[in-house]
């Protein structure tokens, strides 16, 4: 699969899974997709190991865009990218975009064969800053 992959990282596993359902409904199997959510101990939160696993699962040579919800999800995702390290790290971008809307839009863009830069730009358009 040469399309950009999408990873969804929420504090809530329900939000992450439901968002993945919505993405799948729009793009089917045209986009590598993985999600994770929860602190790994049954509570709300995010888990670096799970994020690294999701990145592996959605890996594409075209790169991976990560959609996150609140602060901790972003910080943990950036940490995960750093731990994955080069040469893959520079092909992984944590988007500054709302998680649900950003994932659907980014995946839709990715399904058309857009580059990582384009996919991320599409998601960023949903954000004020």
């Amino acid at each position, binding site marked *: 699969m040469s399309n950009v992959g999408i990873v969804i990282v929420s504090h809530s596993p329900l939000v992450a899974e439901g968002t993945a359902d919505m993405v799948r409904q729009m793009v089917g199997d045209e986009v590598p997709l993985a999600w994770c959510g929860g*602190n*790994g*101990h049954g*509570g*709300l*939160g*995010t*888990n*670096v*190991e799970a994020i690294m696993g999701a990145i592996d699962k959605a890996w594409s040579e075209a790169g991976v865009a990560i959609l996150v919800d*609140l*602060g*901790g999800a972003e*910080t*943990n995702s*950036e*940490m995960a990218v750093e*731990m994955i390290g080069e040469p893959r790290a520079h092909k992984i971008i944590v988007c500054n975009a709302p998680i649900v809307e950003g994932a659907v839009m980014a995946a839709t863009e990715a399904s058309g064969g857009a580059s990582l830069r384009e996919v991320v730009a599409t998601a960023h358009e949903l954000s004020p800053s």
Partner: protein
Amino acid sequence: MSPGTLDKTGTMDKVDLKTLISATADTIAAHADELTALDQAIGDGDHGLNMKRGFEAVRAEAEAFAAKPLPEALKAIGTKLVMTVGGASGPLFGTLFMALGKGISAEPDHANLEAAFGKAIEAVAARGKSQVGQKTMLDVLKPVHDAVLQGKTGAEIADVADNAAAATVPMKALRGRASFLGDRSIGHMDAGGRSVALLVRAVVESIEGQA
């Protein structure tokens, strides 16, 4: 100099890492409810649980960590915290320890400790896209570093940390979940700052206890 103190001029003597790990894990466990309550007031109320999960995971492998040279031990502890804490504080404290491990020598002198600690605080700020004055753990880390630079004693440093944590009370949060509350974050202590103060006291008391 006495072994294990934060003596300004000499070489830091080897402190027993296992003792340090259990002292930090103990204080976090003892104050977990307090940390959670602080986070509940202006956040999501998981900080105590997050920190406890992380430091207990470190404690569980204390033997293995203590067997490594200090730089590798600190990096491994940081990685363990990153992998287990589950909140924003995980990558932040994790980065603190990992960067500390990166900058420190196997047998650090005071100058090396000062420099490595300073770099580690910068790494936390970079990870959190944050700076001093935003009501976060940085508002305790920075004064503690200043106190180390000034050659203060361990007891003095621990007091500086407590005072810095208390000084987050009137601040308005600009980072982390507490920032969602805007002005309503004023009047509460930052949970992460309180954690730093607890850790600092545990470390200095543990070191001086070994002295």
